[in-house]
């Protein structure tokens, strides 16, 4: 279709009337935009229609325009006010305050968490200290008890001299109470028992020589300071200490005799 045919078809008039379908309106608008001749034809049609439609007006009162302007002015101030509230400084302060408050709360939460953790550590430490104190108290009590035993009138002090071969120049101090059948041994002067070995105490009667085990002198049986309290001692004429494998033996190994003394 040539431009002339396009114009002659009458399509442009209907386009300016706005009575074509949306699709046709868009198509004609695109065609007109590309062709100056179509463009000027459209404008001529529009001019005629403006004149024709204006001629049908009975004349508008100026109060109508005033009303319209007032109404749109109200609308635009409403819109402006809305915008103003959103961008006002106060709202920035509000946001800043909210963010600071949130930061503060988070900081306090963190602080609280750290303190809780510290309390946990301290109370664990306290518990272990308490346990230590209880253990020490027990030891002190045991030692006190031993001291009292030694100081009893029935207690006799004995000295078991060190064996020439195994423990020269040493001795074991002993306190024996025949009434209560108790024996206290201090082996602090004997050499340290080697790994896997332990000292064992024996009660002895002579002619014939009869040893009876009265206790293994292992660390865990001592209240401290290598002091041992042994009970249920049978009637004895002497006491001996030998080095035996861990756990003790049925009968003494006389080659490993470390101390021996008679009552």
């Amino acid at each position, binding site marked *: 279709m040539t431009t002339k045919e396009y114009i002659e078809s009458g399509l442009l008039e209907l386009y300016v009337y*706005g009575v074509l379908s949306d699709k046709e*309106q868009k198509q004609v608008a*695109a065609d007109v935009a590309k062709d100056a001749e179509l463009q000027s034809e459209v404008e001529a049609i529009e001019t005629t229609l403006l004149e024709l439609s*204006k001629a049908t007006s*009975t004349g508008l*009162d100026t109060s*109508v325009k005033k009303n*319209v302007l007032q109404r*749109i002015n109200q609308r635009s101030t409403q819109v402006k006010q809305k915008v103003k509230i959103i961008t006002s400084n106060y709202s920035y302060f509000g946001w800043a305050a909210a963010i600071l408050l949130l930061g503060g709360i988070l900081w306090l939460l963190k602080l609280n968490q750290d303190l809780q953790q510290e309390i946990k550590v301290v109370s664990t430490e306290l518990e272990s200290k308490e346990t230590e104190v209880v253990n020490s108290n027990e030891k002190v009590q045991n030692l006190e008890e031993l001291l009292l035993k030694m100081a009893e009138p029935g207690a006799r002090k004995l000295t078991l001299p060190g064996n020439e071969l195994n423990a020269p120049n040493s001795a074991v101090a002993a306190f024996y109470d025949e009434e209560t059948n108790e024996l206290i041994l201090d082996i602090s002067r004997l050499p340290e028992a080697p790994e896997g070995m332990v000292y064992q105490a024996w009660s002895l009667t002579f002619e014939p020589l009869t040893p009876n085990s009265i206790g293994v002198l292992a660390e865990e049986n001592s209240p401290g300071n290598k002091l041992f309290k042994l009970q249920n001692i049978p009637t004895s004429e002497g006491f001996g200490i030998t080095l035996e494998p861990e756990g003790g033996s049925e009968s003494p190994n006389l080659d490993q005799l470390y101390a021996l003394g008679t009552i």
Partner: protein
Amino acid sequence: MQPDELILQLKQKNEVAFSQIYDMYSENIFGIINTIVNDVEIAEEVLQDVFIKVWDKSDSYSSEKGRFFTWLLNISRNAAIDKVRSKAYKNKRKNSDFDNFSFFIKDDMDLDSISDGYGIRKFVDKLKPMCVKLIDLLFFKGYTQKEASETLEIPLGTVKSRNRTCLNSLRETLE
């Protein structure tokens, strides 16, 4: 010429541009509305609503869809037709013989009129009755080609070209 710069400013909610656009088109729009509602008071009401709509919906106009005047025309005709269909209008409506635009154009002798219409009267009077009816239905009332062909009982294929011939005869006398 289409006031493209003003339209752009209108879209940016410029009240001065809006006022100028009102001045350019309000009499045309008022004439069109009045040919549909046939009551000056109601036409003023509808015209106000139309221009409020123009302010609110100026974003929806795009030159890709057509002329700005066409966009205004469509808003105006739709608003006026909605009014005519409303209950309030039906209660108020008086019977009238004014059944097309030609009745609204003043006589040449009516020199008091603030409109420019008085010079057109004699040209419109020269138009064939069928031309007056065609222009009335298509331009003033917004009928589609199909609706116009059914109402006037003329073949659909001839609506477009007949309308052009009618409008041309008016155009030639005006130029």
